[in-house]
């Protein structure tokens, strides 16, 4: 009798033994990390036989030998992508907060700093929320992150704080074949608001594996815009988890921009625990060459009267593969839910692949839920229209692809970030 092989043999767990101790002793954290370790060892690296990992092969990651990340350099020979004037700048290298390279002026109502330090400085809040959202038992890399992380960034918005400067976090991964486990915790107290840009990049063409976990706790009446940009090298692997929870009357706008990675995946889970809340979870993916970019989203409408909007746009060129799996669960009690999901893909090459799987499960009976998935090529009529006005084919095609993705980028309210991403997209496509 044979059974399907559900996990890959791998010695990646050897990095567990090299897990760094946290600078601030914390029995609470030791306990959390132990849970992560246990969970990871139990799950292993899933093969494509497991439904949730059906379209993303971890064979390459499983077969390589990895080491735990070393502290990286503080200075790089390129400019880090901080784009907003007067912003709060956080530099995290291989998961470790670099205090000297960061620029964190004092702002009333805001704490931005090392997660390790916050474990002692903001013990109660951190212990209440850190690890409270990340579904480590259904995401082996989040479990591994939980076992490994020894620092990261903690962002705390106190009650009714309206934070004006943009908070820009840049995570740099460096060092070949190293696993880094950045950790981000955002806690927005009642009525607070802020805009956060979280970027993942690599130091050149490094062959790193980054396994970040971001948790965002959004309290009542809070309003947070959070843009996550994964722009690592196409030699690097990136597998992350981003999870959020919203209390009543809150608004959380979460944008996922994924351009980089040889093998990249993000699981984005959002849930409502209070009524009259609004969530956006939109994404732009551009993949070329032999890149594989997999986005899984999950939205839990657990309570009534919440609205969610989701637009995912994907541009796939070369021999690249893109995956979209968008789950929306409308629980039995979640009456008057309004959920809209759109997933559109532009295939630019005959060898490009898209696997799109919208998945709506609705248990309430008085709801408005729509979803649509389309896959197409460039519209001939649009191309002819542009060319008839004198624009050459190459430029017209570029304009149409860019316009396709821009529909999501336009949602971003920070001009500098939007312009920067549009420029990066343009570069990526040409």
């Amino acid at each position, binding site marked *: 009798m044979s059974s399907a092989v559900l996990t890959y043999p791998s010695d990646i767990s050897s990095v567990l033994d090299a897990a760094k101790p946290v600078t601030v002793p914390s029995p609470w954290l030791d306990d959390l990390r132990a849970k992560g370790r246990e969970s990871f060892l139990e799950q292993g690296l899933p093969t494509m036989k497991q439904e949730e990992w059906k379209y993303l092969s971890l064979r390459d990651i499983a077969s390589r030998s990895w080491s735990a990340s070393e502290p990286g350099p503080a200075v790089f020979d390129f400019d880090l992508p901080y784009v907003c004037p007067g912003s709060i700048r956080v530099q995290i290298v291989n998961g470790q907060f670099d205090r000297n390279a960061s620029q964190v002026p004092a702002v009333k109502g805001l704490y931005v700093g090392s997660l390790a330090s916050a474990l002692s400085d903001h013990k109660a809040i951190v212990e209440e929320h850190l690890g409270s959202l990340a579904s480590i038992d259904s995401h082996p890399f989040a479990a591994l992150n939980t076992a490994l992380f020894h620092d990261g960034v903690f962002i705390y918005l106190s009650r009714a704080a309206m934070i004006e400067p943009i908070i820009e976090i840049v995570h740099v991964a460096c060092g070949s074949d190293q696993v880094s486990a950045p950790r981000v915790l955002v806690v927005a107290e009642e009525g607070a608001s802020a805009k956060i840009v979280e970027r993942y990049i690599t130091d050149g063409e490094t062959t790193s594996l980054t396994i970040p976990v971001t948790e965002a706790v959004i309290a009542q009446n809070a309003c947070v815009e959070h843009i996550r940009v994964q722009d690592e090298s196409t030699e690097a692997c990136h597998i992350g988890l981003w999870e959020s929870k919203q209390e009543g009357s809150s608004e959380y706008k979460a944008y996922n921009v994924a351009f980089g990675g040889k093998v990249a995946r993000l699981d984005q889970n959002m849930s409502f625990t209070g009524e009259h809340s609004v969530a956006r979870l939109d994404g732009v993916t551009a993949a070329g060459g032999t890149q594989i970019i997999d986005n899984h989203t999950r939205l839990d409408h657990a309570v009534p009267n919440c609205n969610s909007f989701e637009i995912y746009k994907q541009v796939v060129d070369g021999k690249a593969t893109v995956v979209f799996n968008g789950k929306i669960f409308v629980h039995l009690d979640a009456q008057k839910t309004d959920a809209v999901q759109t997933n559109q893909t532009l295939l630019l090459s005959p060898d490009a692949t898209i696997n799109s799987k919208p998945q709506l499960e609705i248990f309430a009976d008085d709801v408005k839920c729509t979803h649509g998935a389309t896959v197409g090529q460039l519209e001939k*009529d649009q191309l002819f229209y542009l060319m008839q006005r004198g*624009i050459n084919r190459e430029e017209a095609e570029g304009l*149409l692809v860019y316009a396709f993705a821009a529909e999501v980028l336009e949602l971003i309210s920070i001009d500098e970030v939007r312009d920067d991403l549009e420029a990066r997209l343009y570069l990526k496509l040409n």
Partner: protein
Amino acid sequence: MLEIKDLRASVEEDGKEILKGISLTVKPGEVHAIMGPNGSGKSTLANVIAGRDDYEVTGGSISLNGEDILEMDPDERAHEGVFMAFQYPVEIPGVSNTYFLRAAVNARLKAKGKDEIDAMSFMKMIRDKIKLLDLPQELLSRSVNEGFSGGEKKRNEIFQMAVLEPEVCVLDETDSGLDIDALKTVSDGVNALRSPDRMFVVVTHYQRLLEHIVPDFVHILMDGKIVKSGGKELALELEKHGYGWLEEELAASN
């Protein structure tokens, strides 16, 4: 001068022949109206001049100022001065009208080896011209044709024509779906562009447009051929008697 000689064209997809030998000469300053019943090939003629690749040219020639344009891509024809006002202007979400127009203007300048227009002069120029077409300024910042009413789309075509100042203006059923006010605005826009060195080919189903854009010549197209040519009075005759009259007349002469 635009010279079309014995032009034959088929639908690329199924090979069905639509244009069965059309000859037409348009001199600078002239307005030629092409009229004909549905399916006669009017729109095909307009699209073949503009270079749409849904059609395959199987014979004949089109030249502009002595240069063969059939081998040119649509953008190259545009650089030579060919402009088509679309029967169904295409919506392009995500591309603003302003960005699109500036790209078009600069593409032409570049093709002529000239410097690109600076943003200030460009904005001034389009603000002046949009008034001609009585279009709201805010349309400039909106995506190309997206969410425009039928009338706004048609006026936007003529507005683009005014901005690009082409040599050959091909109007493909620009009057269809317009109310009388929009028809007047569009016609005024076209008339303002009439000049001794500009050529017009106006494709229309109805005579009513020609009351406002008065043609020098009228050609009747039936089953892929020009069956009758004349002055502007031919359009009136056609309006009075209908296409049936012409079919009978043709049958009688055969």
